[in-house]
């Protein structure tokens, strides 16, 4: 008992700070990734051949764009876009500096997940609404996005968990977080207890997020 107590008195500050940093990074970058990813996903679905806003050029362009970014491992992307990061937020270090690469990494991923979710929607329903004389933007909102909600939420759950993984590398630019804690203290300084504790927290975190996502999706899914 004593050793557990002393472990917490020694490390609770550091762990607490790391948890907050992780939440900050995940929360902020998830917000911006969704803001970019969902419209981007919608765009590559709607500009597809045979869809309502068919546009070969836009479709090919965004398709290629997403593929290119998705090909680069996060750790490389992090350094590769340093100049871009600097322009956007004015710094390349700390939590602020890591948000940009995290968003650049996650938004195209979310776009792909959105694409899959939206393509699952029965085109027959879209057709039925078109036949009723309903406006396209209403159809996008009330049919496409509505029917895709369960899959969208599951997709966002996956993206969030992926994002937590990516934040572990944020330590490279001094942004901290749980992953960084496990790496610096646990691996480099060989504080095994701390590494285990961090990994344990990460496991719990991922479990919670996945359960929440599953529950929400199940609630919206009616078949």
């Amino acid at each position, binding site marked *: 008992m004593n050793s557990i107590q002393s472990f917490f008195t020694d490390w609770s500050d550091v762990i607490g700070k790391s948890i907050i940093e992780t939440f900050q990074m995940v929360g902020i970058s998830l917000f911006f990734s969704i803001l970019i990813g969902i419209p981007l996903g919608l765009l590559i679905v709607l500009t597809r051949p045979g869809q309502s806003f068919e546009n070969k050029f836009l479709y090919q362009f965004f398709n290629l764009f997403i593929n290119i970014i998705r090909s680069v491992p996060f750790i490389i992307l992090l350094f590769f876009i340093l100049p871009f990061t600097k322009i956007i937020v004015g710094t390349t270090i700390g939590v602020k500096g890591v948000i940009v690469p995290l968003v650049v990494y996650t938004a195209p991923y979310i776009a792909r997940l959105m694409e899959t979710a939206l393509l699952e929607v029965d085109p027959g329903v879209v057709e039925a609404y078109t036949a009723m004389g309903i406006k396209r933007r209403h159809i996008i909102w009330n049919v496409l996005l509505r029917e895709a909600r369960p899959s969208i939420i599951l997709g966002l759950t996956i993206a969030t968990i992926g994002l937590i993984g990516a934040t572990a590398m944020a330590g490279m630019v001094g942004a901290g977080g749980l992953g960084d804690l496990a790496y610096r203290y646990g691996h480099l300084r060989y504080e095994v207890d701390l590494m285990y504790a961090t990994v344990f927290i990460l496991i719990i975190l991922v479990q919670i997020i996945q359960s929440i996502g599953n529950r929400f999706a199940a609630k919206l899914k*009616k078949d």
Partner: protein
Amino acid sequence: MIQLENITKKFKTKKGIVKAVDGINLHVKKGEIHGVIGYSGAGKSTLIRCVNLLERPTTGKVLIDNVDITSLSLNDLRKTRQKIGMIFQHFNLLKTATVYNNIAIPLKLLGYNDSEVKNRVAKYAEIVGLTEKLDSYPSQLSGGQKQRVAIARALAQEPEILLSDEATSALDPETTEAILELLLKINRELGITILLITHEMNVIQKICDEVSVLESGKVVEYGSAIELFSKPQHPTTRKFLNTISQRNLSPSLIKQLNVSGSVIRLTFLGESTGKPLLAEVSKVYDVQPNILTANIIELKNGIVGNIVVHLHGKAHIVEKALKYFTENGVSVEELGGELNE
């Protein structure tokens, strides 16, 4: 009400250009139920989708109330589409919405106010018989119930025309019957003009006034249901008729029987269906009729009876007997060797 003028629809495929619809003219009058029947691949789905421009015809005009809708702006086209309801083979309902919302959402999107939406949902759910299911989700309903929701959704916009794209093809016979009853009721009580496509002859039989038979993108026969059922002209029409009533015997059987008389098909129509003509004939002339097969088909607007009969007797007397039938309004057809109908 609906007038299709010289509609052609070509599709580009990998094998080249396919003409799904090839110069079709079709006129659906107000208040009637018009059925288009054809085998799969005949182009009927493409044809019905041309009526509300879900598919734009390559050439030709689509006149709704004498307005060519192919030249309308998107906005005006939307307005016209609101007058044309459509139901589908696979219902096309929102899975994530209750029955109530499936009917209500389109109304809200079309700008009706809350109380109007409520009233209409209640009214049309009642007409299709789903008042108790308003809080259910489509996955909790049977196929027939889902189609009822789709019908209510279409009716709630109070359209003048209803397009039915194989609406009963995914349903079992009993449910098909019930949905056809419902369509008939809608047509009679709400005065909605219905254009439907199907590959099932019993759909035509039960509810259609006018029929077009479609083959390879062309109308090969057109007429009232009674005409088509009593005097089918085109081989395809006859094939379809054979799916619901036996009109023919095998050629070998006919050959055998023809030795001692002739095998004829008598088609009774309207009044003549009620007369005991066969009995009269055997009294008046020296012939013995032997009924080989017989059936009676109830159409929406009348009755058509078919009897295939073997008349024993001398040739010249048989001929007189046949004349007697014709004089009494029965059409007579000799079944010599009509092969492979």
